[in-house]
């Protein structure tokens, strides 16, 4: 497992040596979306909490960073800190509300809360410039070329995924999985189920915020669509397609969604239809997701051999 991660990282390190700028940019978008999807996976895959509002943290972080730079004139480091702190606090507050329910109730509450932010971004024109979005942003360390930003986003992605992997492999991560499978038993064993879920909610919000920072650095622009239901749904789709509750699943799922969205859309206008079709195929043939599905097929193949 560790070997395959090292191999993947080595391959990603070499990618700019063999691929052109277009593919390097595409890979950047996959990394950003992978961090976003992995943060959703903490809730969905390991906590059993399906959310439709996670774009709130990506979008809020991106907006806070942009506003800190444009309205307050803060440098990148301070703007990033403000964005991460502000978004994590928002996740803490949203978690207090959303975690009053589980299942469908939780799903609807997360959706409602993110829609509040989405509506605010659209309507509070004096601050967010509404449908025009915020422009005139820059990247930190003057990483304006595709290659330097690629390595920056790769480093942040590797660190983020490693931190999330540590979390799910830790005692608290084991407790989280326990609350997903047997919440009553976990309470009887002395675990505060609600608090474990809330901590994870805030932690997932923090990593959603990190993906938001990468997002705004990459695009140098932010629009209310980053806070939309569609963006949350794409993240959820990436996790389910890749394999929820697995470490590599969100990365593979993010690659599938981003390749279809950015690459295939150049050839097929209705790429959403194709995304839906691919998703249906995955659910039919690998209901557990691509990563566990391929693993299952590989093990079967090996046992026959």
């Amino acid at each position, binding site marked *: 497992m560790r070997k395959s991660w090292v191999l993947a990282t080595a391959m990603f390190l070499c990618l700019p040596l063999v691929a052109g700028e277009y593919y390097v940019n595409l890979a950047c978008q996959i990394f950003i979306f992978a961090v976003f999807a992995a943060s959703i996976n903490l809730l969905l895959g390991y906590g059993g909490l399906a959310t439709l509002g996670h774009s709130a943290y990506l979008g809020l972080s991106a907006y806070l960073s942009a506003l800190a730079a444009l309205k307050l004139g803060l440098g990148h480091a301070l703007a990033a800190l403000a964005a991460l702190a502000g978004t994590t606090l928002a996740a803490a507050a949203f978690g207090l509300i959303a975690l009053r329910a589980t299942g469908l109730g939780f799903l609807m509450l997360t959706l409602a809360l993110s829609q509040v932010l989405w509506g605010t971004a659209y309507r509070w024109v004096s601050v967010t410039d509404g449908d025009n979005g915020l422009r005139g942003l820059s990247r930190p360390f003057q990483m304006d070329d595709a290659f330097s930003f690629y390595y920056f986003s790769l480093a942040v992605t590797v660190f983020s995924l490693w931190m999330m992997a540590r979390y799910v492999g*830790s005692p608290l991560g084991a407790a989280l999985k326990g609350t997903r499978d*047997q919440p*009553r038993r976990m309470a*009887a064993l002395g675990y505060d189920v609600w608090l474990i879920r809330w*901590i994870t909610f805030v932690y997932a919000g923090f990593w959603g915020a990190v993906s938001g920072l990468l997002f705004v650095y990459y695009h140098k622009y932010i629009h209310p669509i980053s806070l939309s239901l569609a963006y949350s749904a794409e993240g959820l789709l990436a996790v389910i397609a890749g394999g929820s509750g697995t470490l590599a699943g969100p990365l593979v799922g993010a690659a599938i969604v981003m390749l279809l969205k950015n690459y295939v859309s150049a050839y097929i206008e209705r790429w959403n239809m194709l995304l839906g079709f691919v998703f249906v195929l995955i659910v039919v043939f690998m209901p557990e997701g691509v990563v566990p599905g391929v693993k299952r097929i590989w093990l079967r193949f090996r046992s026959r051999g």
Partner: protein
Amino acid sequence: MAALQIQGLKKAFGGLPAINGVSLEVAEGERRLIIGPNGAGKTTLFNLVTGDLPADAGSISLLGKDISRLATHRRAHRGLARTFQIITLFPKDTLEHNIVLSLLGMSPARWDGFSAFSTDLYRSAREILQRVNLEGLATRPLSDVSYGEKRRVEIAMALAQKPKVLLLDEPLAGLSREERATVKALIAAIPRDVTVVMIEHDMDTALDMAERITVLHYGSVIVEGTRAEVVADPKTREVYLGY
């Protein structure tokens, strides 16, 4: 001081009383059996004691301290452990990981979101499994072991919490004769500093394990006493033994 004291406990579901003013006192170290026909409210009583269900009225004290308003996990930290009527364990995880989860629940390490598991926890889990003769299956997924072995794991998990009061909800249900004998021996070996309250349908097996027996009927205590007193009581015969 009573290990467990329940006073005037009430719980109704949609106006239908499930527990109707139950009061009982279990002494420290006692083995108490709770019996009653189906629907008598035995499991509901356990759920109220552990905090799985909120009571409508009444109070619950554990070793002299009121726990009525505490959440389930806080009651566990005060020394209350339980097993469930329907086994609720972690089937995909190994036996030792199930025990580790139990040990971790009582440890501050459960809040550690960065470090790997300590090897000490797994060593302790092995020792606990050894005590219930399941050490050989430690690395097997729980779903791969028999029902009786799952029951033993469940009891081992409850004991790993080092409880002061242990609630066993039908621990012998669904077991073969051999498995029943093994689980019975396991329960009999529980140290005396642990108070055991047990619900059991299998009268033949359970009666000889109890020092005192409480008979519940329609959510009320109708008889309480020693085995001889309860068996001899006409109310027990009427509602439970059927003659």
